[in-house]
């Protein structure tokens, strides 16, 4: 079984491109300047990242007008949307895998310090609910 890291999309993984794709995944279309402000990047950086994503077919760039003003619209293609979802699944798997690894490490440490197999007090799961609200 391959590590979830192997399922990450190289192109989407880069932080700026990831932010752009994540924003586009939430809407049907976003206006160029809005994406630029949302991701806090310059026109040229967005243009470059947009071109890279367009070349692989992840996004579509459409020129249009709002009134008389020219506008550029960015949208995710079906392929881009699918790639983003796969990438997010891989990220979630990495988070889960890491939690499982930590949990297994704790369990094996318990087994080493308690070889007779006596029940040990249950440790809170690293990703589980906190006990902040309960009585100690």
């Amino acid at each position: 079984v391959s590590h979830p890291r192997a399922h990450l999309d190289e192109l989407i993984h880069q932080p700026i491109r990831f932010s752009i794709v994540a924003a586009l995944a939430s809407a049907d279309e976003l206006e160029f300047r809005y994406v630029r402000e949302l991701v806090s990047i310059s026109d040229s950086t967005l243009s470059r990242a947009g071109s890279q994503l367009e070349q692989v077919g992840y996004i579509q760039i459409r020129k249009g007008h709002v009134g008389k003003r020219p506008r550029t619209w960015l949208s995710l293609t079906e392929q881009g949307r699918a790639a983003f979802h796969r990438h997010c699944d891989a990220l979630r798997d990495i988070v889960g895998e890491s939690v499982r690894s930590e949990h297994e490490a704790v369990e094996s440490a318990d087994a080493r310090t308690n070889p007779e197999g006596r029940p040990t007090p249950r440790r809170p799961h690293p990703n589980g609910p906190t006990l902040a609200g309960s009585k100690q």
Partner: protein
Amino acid sequence: MDSAREEAQEALATAAANRRTVVQRAPWEYRVYLAWGLFVLLMLPPFDFVDHNLWGPVILVVAACGMAATAHYFRQRGGQVRLQRALKESRWRWVWSLYGVWYLGVVSAARLVESSHSLAWSVAALAAGLPLIAIGAAQAVGAK
């Protein structure tokens, strides 16, 4: 916590934050229904207590500002974010046409009975405002 996990969590948090920001920025129809519902609820009852000649122009001015604000809201936000589900909750032309007829009926009725009923306009405000609030609330729930 290893760095890969940290990085993955950070990326997922970024995606969630971007999603929230974009969705928040979309031109949501339900907000307009709620705003106009509130307008009607707040602006009609004073007719029970204030001179019509005084309050009528106030309503006209506020309504004109409201229409300008509504147009600006859709133009500005629709010019940045296009999100189909924010706008396809209702057939807004039908809703506003039917509501317009209802509103005129309610206002005409209030005008007819205002001399005999001291709270005619307050009741009219409820009858005219609550349907918009209900539509807006239903859409807001659907939007979540």
